[in-house]
């Protein structure tokens, strides 16, 4: 009951903003032609569901985002652990990571389209690359700082050296890996929509740009709302999962 109350508490400002938005629209304070009212956006949302195959577009977008994100998570964690535990991997990977970090990954989307075509592969590639670096860096930075006494303890308890990276370093670095993953998750949605804006036949980004071009602003707002809801749901789910994995950090 208390938990439910505190959750509702969290959403009060959002509800308030929505109410203000609708009230201002009804009062004619905002121009309906460029900023549709909440009610017309919701009507647009239902229309997208029935006429524009919203669920299909959402499904495709989620597939691309998840593929890119999971790929980035898996490869990023492995690369970060490798860099922290092997001098050669650090020598080979670190300069590339450091120098490409400031590069806006969305700038590479046209190249991905050139190489991988206009289908899923180019979107997944762009999302993967954009989400990769925060995972690598957070994994590397925390894995590098793992207490040597933990590694020594494992050795003396019979863990062979080559197994230490995933038996000790990975779980010890998990708290910071989880925060890196969360940043990557948010980035993956940014990359998804940018890639679908640029060139695509389907997906929520495509839907937003199509509806915008056709002047269907309530529909466009509804599609943006759909992306937002999916992004928030993904973030909240990730947070819950992260708390579950990191149960041991609770004091």
């Amino acid at each position, binding site marked *: 009951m208390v938990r439910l109350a505190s959750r509702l508490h969290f959403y009060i400002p959002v509800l308030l903003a929505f109410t203000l938005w609708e009230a201002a629209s009804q009062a004619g304070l905002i121009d309906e032609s460029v900023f549709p009212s909440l009610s017309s956006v919701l009507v647009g949302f239902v229309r997208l569901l029935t006429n524009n195959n919203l669920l299909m577009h959402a499904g495709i977008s989620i597939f691309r985002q998840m593929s890119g994100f999971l790929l980035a998570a898996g490869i990023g964690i492995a690369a970060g652990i490798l860099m922290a535990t092997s001098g050669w991997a650090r020598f080979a990977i670190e300069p590339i990571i450091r120098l490409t970090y400031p590069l806006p990954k969305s700038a590479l989307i046209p190249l991905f389209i050139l190489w991988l075509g206009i289908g899923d592969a180019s979107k997944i590639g762009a999302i993967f690359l954009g989400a990769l670096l925060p995972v690598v860096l957070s994994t590397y930075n925390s894995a590098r700082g793992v207490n040597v*006494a933990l590694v020594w*303890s494992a050795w003396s308890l019979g863990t062979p050296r080559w197994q230490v990276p995933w038996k000790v370093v990975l*779980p010890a670095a998990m708290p910071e890996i989880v925060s890196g993953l969360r940043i990557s998750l948010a980035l993956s949605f940014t990359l998804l929509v940018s890639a679908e804006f640029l060139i695509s036949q389907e997906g929520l980004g495509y839907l937003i740009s199509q509806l915008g071009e056709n002047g269907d602003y309530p529909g466009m707002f509804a599609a943006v709302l759909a992306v937002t809801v999916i992004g928030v749901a993904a973030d909240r789910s990730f947070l819950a999962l992260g708390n579950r994995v990191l149960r041991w950090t609770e004091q």
Partner: protein
Amino acid sequence: MAFLEIQDVRKSYVTGQGEPFIAVDGIDLTIEQGEFISLVGPSGCGKSTLLHMIGGFVPCTEGAIRVDGVAVQQPGPDRGIVFQHFALFPWKTVRGNVEYGLVERGMPRAERRQTAQRFIDMVGLSGFEDSFPSRLSGGMQQRVAIARMLACEPSILLMDEPFGALDAQTRKIMQEELRALWHQFGKTVVFVTHDVREAVFLSQRVVVMSTRPGRIKAIVETGLGPGASRALIDEKADKLWDMLRDEVVRAMAAERSKA
């Protein structure tokens, strides 16, 4: 042949500033099976380094360390270690930590549970099997570390200032319990501390080390039985402290001149 032989061991390395540094030099020490021996000395005398070399975590630069006639090359479950800051696996429960070495040894699940439980009970943590280390006090965490080490049945226990991070009262209790455990098991213990009284209370022999480079200054037999009176322990500790005091002062002066 002694059980643990340390023969003319030297450890030197190059510091971050590129200067050669001799951590310990000319260490000759033989330790009998079942003996409780302490290493005391000022900070920087290399007592922990020596312990880490026995553990096989860092190699000797010169000389050799042999356990039962076999040269130490790497860490192994025959030499268990406990660190000052416990070094528990924080993502594992108490049971998970104590079972860790048993899993590595390939012990079947049921037997593993039973063995771990025996050691958890032994260190007085029954009821905390499913707690994570972050929920436990320092003293309790160090008990888990001791249980985790004992579960692997090492022949030598290496203890690196194990009670240094505990409050004074907890430390006293832990000292008494460790002494009782040692009387019960008769394992060989190499115990590093800078607390002279702790060393006297626990050990049969105390190795006093000098600093820069770390060498053995004296080896003192405590000659105290389990029923030794407080007065006798204090008297022995005072004598040892007289021996150590000059070293500590010298070490502090060296530290100051460096700064």
